[in-house]
């Protein structure tokens, strides 16, 4: 099982790009951390999530 934004999900084997899409996030508005490290945007499609990975997807909203 993997952990995404604090919740346990069965997402191992999927790429970051697929997970971002599955959650309905806009890719232009997110930053993704995998086990405490930023995942570069260019690597979303090739970064495959493994068992026990911890993922944090920050989806920014407007206002400031």
């Amino acid at each position, binding site marked *: 099982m993997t952990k995404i934004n604090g919740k346990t999900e069965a997402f191992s084997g999927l790429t970051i790009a697929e997970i971002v899409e599955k959650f309905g996030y806009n890719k232009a508005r997110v*930053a993704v951390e995998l086990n405490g490290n*930023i995942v570069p945007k260019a690597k979303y499609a090739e970064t495959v999530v493994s068992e026990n990975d911890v993922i*944090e997807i*920050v989806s*920014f*909203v*407007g*206002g*400031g």
Partner: protein
Amino acid sequence: MIPSKEEFFNGLAAKHGAELQKKFAVASVAVCGAGGLGSNIAIALARAGVGRLKIIDFDKIEITNLNRQQYFADQIGLFKAEALKENLAKIAPYCEVTAETAKITEENVTELLKGFPIVCEAFDKAEAKAMLVNAVLENMPETYLVSGSGMASLNSANLIKTRKITDKFYLCGDMESDVDAGNGLFGARVLVCAAHQAHAVLRIIAGENNENLEK
């Protein structure tokens, strides 16, 4: 009569403690965006005695900014970075402020933020926030980054929090209320988020970035 630099330091040290004040005095912080978040963050940091600030913004002051941004009515039409530098000079005359009227992009971000170990993201557009956060975290791994997301709406101010996402990345806001979803921007709630960001910066400078308190 403006007090001397030493009098300013002593006045601040009386409130914060001399040891901590020395840390604030040698700190350098870049504030990206000088709107509702950035103008308030910059003023809070200057008032705390942070030694060096860089304000980066491409925009001019408009009448619709005055509900939350720290400008005066007679500054409408001026570039925000320059106007904020003027206002900061009146508040904290010994804070070394650099004003840069520029749009931050993926291409110039590393150059613009060079020499600033702590960066505040204080933009208004979600895409710009994401661009800056990704660019700093990817290209400047030693830099502390404090970002704001979710401060629109009349929802409770208590929903605004500081979260530590990684060792170097802090996120303040309610993470949800989006101006693009038709929420208004209310000055007091924007200030709460700006205060969270400024306070997170002071805690980073002080070395009080205790993970357990902020997860």
